[in-house]
């Protein structure tokens, strides 16, 4: 029977983390050398955790499927990282960052986790500066800030439009140092395919060398997953094509609870989809909403050029609906507002799937040079993809799946329901509730990796009774066997359809029924269609080549097979949550003017799902107690 004990320290919010750190047991320096920790994933969370654990003296085995740890998808984060530094003296504080994040998450996250995140946020900036991250500076030499959606202070630190890249390269350089010192052994181009559990504890992984195809068992005293989010289940998303759900999904099947999978963030500002050939949607940073204004024509099906539409015939719909926050409302509200005007046939561009993001006012006021300095790389990117010049005509944007607030359930110590399996970064569920605010994912990834996990894992390692486990252990062999048989099954189908065609189909299904808005009928029908599609996959997929060689199609087909199962879990969760909150919008639960209706009496809980082999997943609830903030209707009007 699965139990969910969040292990939140009692007492005042402000001192919970300090008290937990003090009460935790430590591992002595001599013993650390004898302890091996596996870290899977080298994005912000994984690289910062692996390097910090290495510095502390643990032996770290670090895995990534990319050819270099520096290529993890954190690299693509554009806009910035939040921190409660209050350098602008505009009223920011730890308490305000905490409150903004709780409210932004529509009161579906844990108070204690979010407060701790806000507390360590300031340290992250200092750490990154020490590592040589070239943050933007003012003329006086001080760190610069910009604003982001959902907040009224300026607390976002940035490196042009490449903040994720610079933060990741900082963590990667720290990792390089530990590799050089022999504390971390890097396994690039190696994909985790299953978990080894012994006596109910996580003790290792089975991984495939993507170059030779060789499978290997790696055992350790604890396993850390930092394998990112699952937005690629939608096929078209802003994620890198390699981002996948395989690691987190396969440990779910080994007994780790999966929490709130239906909380998937659809980002409002991506370049609209172009055609059937398309493999990904390109994000245009949210920071553009600082200066750009969103609008559509007031008239339906208005095909005039944007420049020919006078101001009186334009609907600046975010400014109209949310006068207080205007174009800077949180992502979930902005995305739904875009969808609403497109559903009214007022969308622009091919297929009416798009709205204008217009910079003409700010260019008239401040000149195009200022805009070029702020967003030059984004404007260039837009031009390359669409062939249009956004300095002279407005951009067209449309929402795209972007980030997973849901993930593996973890307690306050970031440990999953499998003892010894820790989950950090986007792969866990803890901090963003039902909606993540901009510039908070980088903050959370680095908070988990640099400042939280290294403490909490020590307590586990100091107190758990762990017997030696090797490759020959029965549990190691059985995990190995699971992976072997799945790979041979994939290769033996020899059907007629490519894995990509199934991926596209399940993605379309989810986008239609479990995307920006959901309803019971659509979700129920998806729950019938997905198993049928999965059955067809296993009957008709074509995976060429062999398992004992470099085989990109085999890697991909394995991930698609997991999407085809995971999609069902996502729909179960969305169906169970009979309320609208954050990114989860159930059409049955809305006010007359289309605003979401949350139901705190029935759904103020984390939905944690347990895998069952023969039946539907089983729901467990972790009630959310709000001791320090009062959940209110989340209003940005």
């Amino acid at each position, binding site marked *: 029977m699965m139990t969910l004990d969040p292990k939140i320290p009692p007492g005042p919010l402000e001192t919970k983390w300090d008290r937990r750190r003090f009460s935790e047991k430590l591992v002595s320096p001599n013993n650390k050398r004898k302890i091996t920790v596996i870290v899977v994933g080298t994005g912000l969370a994984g690289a910062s955790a692996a390097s910090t654990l290495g510095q502390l003296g643990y032996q770290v085995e670090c895995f990534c499927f990319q050819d270099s740890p520096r290529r993890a998808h954190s690299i693509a984060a554009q806009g910035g990282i939040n921190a409660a530094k209050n350098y602008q003296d505009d009223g920011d504080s730890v308490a305000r960052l905490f409150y903004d994040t709780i409210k932004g998450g529509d009161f579906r996250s844990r108070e204690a986790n979010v407060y701790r995140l806000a507390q360590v946020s300031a340290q992250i900036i200092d750490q990154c500066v020490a590592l040589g991250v070239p*943050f933007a500076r003012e003329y006086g030499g001080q*760190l610069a800030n910009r604003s982001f959606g959902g907040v009224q202070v300026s607390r976002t630190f940035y490196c042009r439009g490449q903040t994720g890249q610079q933060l990741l390269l900082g963590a990667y350089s720290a990792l*390089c140092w530990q590799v050089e010192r022999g504390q971390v052994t890097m396994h690039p181009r190696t994909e985790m395919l299953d978990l080894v559990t012994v006596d109910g504890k996580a003790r290792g992984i089975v991984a495939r060398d993507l170059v030779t195809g060789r499978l290997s068992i790696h055992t350790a005293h604890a396993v850390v997953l930092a394998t990112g989010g699952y937005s690629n289940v939608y096929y078209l998303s802003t994620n890198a094509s390699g981002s996948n759900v395989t690691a987190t999904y396969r440990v779910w099947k080994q007994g780790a609870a999966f929490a709130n999978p239906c909380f998937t963030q659809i980002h409002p500002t991506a370049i609209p989809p172009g055609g059937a050939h398309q493999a990904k949607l390109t994000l245009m940073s949210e920071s553009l909403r600082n200066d750009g204004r969103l609008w559509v024509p007031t008239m339906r099906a208005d095909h005039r050029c944007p420049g020919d539409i006078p101001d009186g015939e334009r609907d600046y719909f975010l400014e109209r609906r949310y006068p207080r926050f205007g174009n800077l409302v949180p992502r979930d509200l902005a995305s739904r507002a875009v969808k609403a005007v497109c559903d009214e046939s007022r969308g622009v561009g091919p297929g009416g799937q798009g709205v204008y993001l217009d910079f003409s006012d700010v260019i008239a006021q401040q000149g195009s040079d200022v805009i070029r300095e702020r967003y030059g790389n984004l404007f260039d990117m837009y031009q390359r993809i669409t062939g249009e010049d956004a300095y002279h005509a407005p951009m067209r944007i449309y929402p795209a799946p972007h980030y997973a607030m849901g993930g593996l359930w973890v307690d306050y110590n970031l440990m999953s329901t499998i003892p010894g399996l820790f989950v950090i970064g986007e792969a866990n569920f803890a901090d963003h509730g039902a909606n993540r605010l901009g510039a908070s994912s980088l903050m959370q990834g680095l908070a988990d990796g640099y400042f939280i996990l290294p403490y909490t894992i020590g307590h586990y390692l100091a107190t758990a009774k762990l017997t030696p486990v090797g490759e020959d252990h029965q549990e190691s062999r059985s995990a190995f066997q699971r992976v072997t048989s799945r790979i041979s099954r994939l290769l033996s189908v020899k059907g007629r359809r490519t894995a990509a065609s199934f991926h596209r189909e399940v993605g379309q299904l989810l986008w239609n029924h479990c995307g920006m808005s959901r309803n019971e009928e659509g979700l129920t029908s998806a729950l019938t269609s997905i198993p049928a599609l999965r059955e067809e996959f296993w009957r008709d997929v074509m995976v060429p080549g062999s398992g004992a060689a470099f085989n990109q199609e085999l890697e991909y087909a394995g991930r698609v097979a997991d999407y085809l199962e995971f999609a069902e879990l996502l729909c179960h969760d969305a169906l169970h949550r009979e309320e609208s909150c954050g990114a989860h919008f159930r059409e049955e639960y809305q006010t007359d003017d289309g605003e979401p209706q949350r139901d705190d009496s029935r759904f103020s809980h984390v939905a944690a799902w347990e895998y069952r082999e023969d039946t539907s997943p089983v729901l467990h609830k972790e009630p959310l107690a709000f001791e320090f903030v009062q959940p209110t209707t989340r209003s940005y009007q």
Partner: protein
Amino acid sequence: MKFTLNIWRQKGPDEHGRFVSYEARDVSSGTSFLEMLDSVNQGLIAKGEEPVAFEQDCREGICGSCSLVINGIPHGPDRGITTCQLYMRRFPDGAVITIEPWRARAFPIIKDLVVDRRALDRIMQAGGYISVHTGGAVDGNVLLISKDQAETAMDAASCIGCGACVAACKNASPALFVGAKVSHLELLPQGKPERTNRVKAMLEAVDREGFGSCGNQNECEAVCPKRISVRFIAILNREYLRAGVVESGLPAEPESPHAEST
């Protein structure tokens, strides 16, 4: 649109490779170069053939995975972009396009268009970092950094580690890659304490990995998707010279009140 593709196919590191010709049909001009290759591959898989192996991940020009030499030019004909940002509208209908992997001794071919670039990681591991422990860092505003200096450091730091500079260089020199990292860290006060050892260790790693030397022909800058300037190679050379002076025991910067330990 329709294209003829001459693609380098090679089963493994020790096998002989050769060009194989493929047709790409019904390509719309808004298709990206990699999406065009995707569709060729989908056709091959459906026939039970092995698709062309190539690297890609973020498809927005920042991860540094994609690595194709297109008609002889790393990342293709346009300046300042990666292969994944190249669109088919750039090519005339009916064009013949030759696609090859990065070619350098330090980048052995794994399969088809995929090469092993771990040598770049090993150069970074030799010294491309500031050795600072997690925790206990001073406030980020303690050391002021002028805007210009921060911007120049950022110019250097924007390297994506794709290796196009090596692929373009007839000596297969990674001078631009190393110069960018050495300059980025040297330009910031946090990176100064280790500058002497850093440049030496990184350049020793370059030699160990079998890369060549810089011949100052600047082909790297021409293909760099992030337009990283060769003046960072000048900084690299200056840093290397300076390291030699420091090691010889002469004061490198006589005006500095603090002697640097090496």
